[in-house]
């Protein structure tokens, strides 16, 4: 069974706050799922390749001049000021 500390470490990396109850359930569920993944050890080794046809056609970088969408996007931010998204102090 995956330990409580391990769940807490992963949750922190994932930026998720979990309650005690959630951590317990997560220990149980994650353990069952990770045990299931052991099945893959049986699979023969192979090199993953990307077919030419599957390669995405990367688009060219374009500078968007649509300021209308910019305002709309900033409007959606929960916290904003003077046309900028406002965040808590980082440093």
């Amino acid at each position, binding site marked *: 069974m995956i330990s409580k500390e391990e769940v807490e470490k992963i949750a922190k990396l994932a*930026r998720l706050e979990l309650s005690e109850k959630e951590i317990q359930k*997560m220990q149980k569920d*994650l353990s069952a799922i990770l045990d299931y993944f052991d099945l*893959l050890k049986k699979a023969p080794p192979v090199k993953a390749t990307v077919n030419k046809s599957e390669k*995405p056609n990367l688009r060219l970088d374009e500078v968007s001049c649509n300021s209308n969408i910019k305002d709309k*996007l900033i409007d*959606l931010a*929960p916290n904003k000021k003077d046309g900028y998204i406002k*965040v808590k102090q980082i440093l």
Partner: protein
Amino acid sequence: MDLTTLTIKQAHQGLKNGDFTSVDLTKAYLKKIKDLNKDINAFLLITEDLALQQAEGADKKIALSKAEGQDFGTLCGIPCAVKDAILVEGEKCTAGSKMLENYTAPYNATAVKKLKEEGAVILGKVNTDEFTMGSSTENSAFGVTKNPHDTTRVSGGSSGGSAAAVAANMACYTLGSDTGGSIRQPASLCGVVGLCPTYGAVSRYGLIAHASSLDQIGPIAKNVEDAKTVFKALCGKDKMDATTKEYDFEEKDFSLKGLKVGVPKEYFAKGIDKDVEKIIRNAIKKAENAGAKIVDISLPSSEYALACYYIIGPSEISANLARFDGIRYGLSEPAQNLLEVYLKTRGKGFGAEVKRRIMIGTYCLSSGYYDAYYKKAQEVRQLIKNDFKEAFNKVDLIFCPVSPFPAFKIGEKADDPMSMYLADIYTIPMKLAGLPGISIPAGEVGNPLASSGHGLPVGLQIIGNHFQENKILSIAQQMESLLK
């Protein structure tokens, strides 16, 4: 006449004949939604104003076309609904999550833009498992969508709202999205047609991302012909989605006679419901009677597909859902510092399944585990692709079940993630190979307790090679009439 029972083609003919207007059609659907939605919970949002405005616009367009003696588009004036993970500009888009409960879409998804250009009428947004993660819509933060064939059962998922809306005649067709089976599985459980296109056939721009190497938008409709009509309107290259390809859908008739149909033995192994197996075997028999050559094939790496999917999917999820940070949009929880904003917002905004998948993905990508999980899963994905490649050297199409069981009881699998994951065991492998597939109704399993007096629908899955939607659709249409 109940206008909501008409197919796209029939409704188009009615509009053409002047039997009714798009406004008549739209009002009939809006009434049906108001009557039924409290029991089914397919619609999270009814966009009545938008729908009526679009219907009036369509009626004008139709009148103009008629005056000029010209034809108008098949989708013009036809009411549809859109999965609530696909953006419709100016309307709320929740992705079934508390995180986006009050989020308004700032632009149209390309698929929606294309439908709007065709003159479509959008009735509303339909339910989905949170961020399209699930097989029953029980993971939606806004309640489960019930199966119109038996309201004590799930509609399937994640596009459960899309499938139930079509099954209950609450929309003429809908848009869904499929990452591991989310179009085909609910279509199978609700007895409607669901097409998951080839990866790259339809633009995902404006679809809230789940796992980007798998996500695909496709139609759910009353019959195969309607699914084809919608697919034709959706497919093609879009500069906003670099994975899309130039796609000229070539209308072509393929004959069942002489067609080589592969039946993978791994899809009839343990775990399949006996009645489901009987229905699928019967469908295959009918194809054989119509002249198809049935070929036993093997897809030996299928047994790894579920494990492979639940590593690759969550790994991509853990990256894709990092954007829900309480800063850019959606829910934001008050906190002392930046890290706490992230932790609290995500802790509160995401439901149990989304958290579980973010955790799995973060674990699989974390230092020391990457090779054992993510890298290994990518290799296994190659094995699965190789299996299908080899199979399509021998056969034209593959016939198999969509789901190992018909619609299950609400709550039956909700607490056990592994048993829920098994619902997609037959829809996941071909997704990992980027192939197209369809679910069409193949029969019903007896359900003596159903209030409707009907059984529970079972879907036949038809899988084709990359970009062979025309072959799949042509054969599916013939199978549809054989199975009636």
